[in-house]
């Protein structure tokens, strides 16, 4: 733990390089794709005359050589300026920050559900290894792993909203509801159940399998044999000795899965009309708002880098044996 600061500095440095490369990649995509912002705008208000379009290009700096444009792009992002969404007449960053809380709520709830249920199922499967309980959990995990998220969400709507009328079909708030703070929190939670459970199912499957394998591995270690031979109860061995040691790979997985989670959010937010980043990216595609779309990608990637660094630090705190050098 003593050399945490230099480690942190190096990880942040690496992260910045990765983000810079992603920015270049995005810039390349933006320029390789057919048509530019001016073409899109021209398509909007009917064909403009070439002189006016050239004037617009000069205004946006699109007539400059590519390396100048790239330099400008970097300079802007360094000042936290992700560009301007002409469609929404708002800076891209404002739109993103506006949608960020909804996605964070969805992601955190999903991780919480997936992590705890995966942990529990994994522990149960490992304690009853090679019995029908274990088989049942394995089959469940396999099914969850193979189910397309967006489809599961739709089927959830059919069952819980349309047939049973228990949960709302989408959105984040009840429209037109007049609530105090407490009631609106409950209202958001009520809307959160279906999207979060849908997104959690796939990750639960991963955590279940990982936890089971990890528990079984620790069960084979010598110190567990010692614990058994000194006559500790089975429950105490499982929860006091195996579980704390088996949980480490789960923490790593948490970091690895952030990207998948954000990708899944695009589908789940679209299905449930959840007003988050994924939904923003989806709308940007169909409004052909490329500044906004690529801004979302850069922002999401930065989020992944940040959470990965945080997970590694958390990992080092959890397991003092890990050298952070």
């Amino acid at each position: 733990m003593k050399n945490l600061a230099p480690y942190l500095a190096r990880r942040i440095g690496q992260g910045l390089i990765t983000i810079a490369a992603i920015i270049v990649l995005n810039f390349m995509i933006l320029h390789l794709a057919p048509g530019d912002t001016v073409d899109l705008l021209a398509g909007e208000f009917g064909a403009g005359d070439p002189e006016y379009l050239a004037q617009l290009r000069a205004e946006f700096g699109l007539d400059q050589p590519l390396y100048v444009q790239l330099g400008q792009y970097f300079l802007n992002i360094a000042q936290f300026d992700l560009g301007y969404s002409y469609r929404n007449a708002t800076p891209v960053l404002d739109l993103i920050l506006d949608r960020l809380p909804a996605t964070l709520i969805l992601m955190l709830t999903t991780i919480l559900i997936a992590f705890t249920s995966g942990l529990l199922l994994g522990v149960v499967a490992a304690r009853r290894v090679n019995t029908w309980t274990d088989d049942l959990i394995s089959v469940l995990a396999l099914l969850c792993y193979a189910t397309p998220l967006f489809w599961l969400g739709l089927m959830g709507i059919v069952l819980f909203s349309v047939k049973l009328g228990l949960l709302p079909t989408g959105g984040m708030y009840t429209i037109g509801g007049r609530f105090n703070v407490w009631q609106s929190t409950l209202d958001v939670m009520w809307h959160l159940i279906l999207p979060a459970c849908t997104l959690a199912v796939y990750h639960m499957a991963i955590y279940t399998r990982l936890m089971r394998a990890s528990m079984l591995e620790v069960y084979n270690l010598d110190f567990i044999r010692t614990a058994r031979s000194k006559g500790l109860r089975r429950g105490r061995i499982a929860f006091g000795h195996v579980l704390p040691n088996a949980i480490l790979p789960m923490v790593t997985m948490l970091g690895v899965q952030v990207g998948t989670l954000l990708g899944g959010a695009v589908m789940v937010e679209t299905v449930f009309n959840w007003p988050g980043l994924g939904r923003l990216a989806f709308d940007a595609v169909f409004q052909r708002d490329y500044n906004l779309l690529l801004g979302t990608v850069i922002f999401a990637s930065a989020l992944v880098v940040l959470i990965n660094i945080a997970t590694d630090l958390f990992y080092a705190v959890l397991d003092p044996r890990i050298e952070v050098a």
Partner: protein
Amino acid sequence: MEALSDFWRRFRRRRTAVFGLALMAVIVLLAALGPMVVPGSPWEIVGTPFTFPFVDPAHPLGTDVLGRDILRGILNGARVSLLVGLSAAAAALTIGIVIGACAGYFRGWLDDLLMRFTDVFQTIPNFLFAFVLVAMFGTSLVNVVIAIALVSWPPIARLVRAETLSLREREFVQSCIVIGMGEGSIIFRQILPNAMPPVIVMSSIMVATAILTEAGLSFLGLGDPNVMSWGTMIGIGRSALRTAWYMAAIPGVCILLTVLALNLVGEGLNDALNPHLKNR
């Protein structure tokens, strides 16, 4: 021959793997022969809209919102899913193997460079990136395959790199270097064949993931507009979810079964190809 029977003996030890293989065989057969048995375009309007499954013998799986035959769509979609899954996985494997082998064999600055490059692609959220690529470059089937391949190669590259790093220190590779074998032949004829078992296991999962990604993209309206895929059908069914949930349910079950079969086969391959890892 003996190796093959040995392989099969280990593979069938896991009953679920055999089930997965059988399921996969059925799906491949349906994709290959189905459109011949039930001819006609899946886009053609052939019956009364909103016919439920098992009601009209002419349309055993019912019809969709416009009166298109769902069975035709399913059989056609099986072809699309397998085609996209296999080609995207093949492309991703090629990229991943070349990058991983170069990084692991040459080490040094090339390794650093290639691994940073891999980091970049691994950091961008996969599905979001595929979604952006298809949105920017157009929704043709080829673009969908390229986009899926571009987002899914990094794990292969890491795996091949790790295998290559350990294999290149082994005696048989060292002796190849000593007798002056070219680097190309060492990589492709000595190292890669020995690095293949875990890659083969991973590739069945790659095909499954590619099928899921394709379904997600076409569900969101970013599939090839001329191709009826399972994702497209779910997207169509979504508009009639309240009254005719079967339209979205049927293609979804098909995706689930295909992906499940591929995962089960993957587990069987793992037992058969990495016998020392078996049994936990």
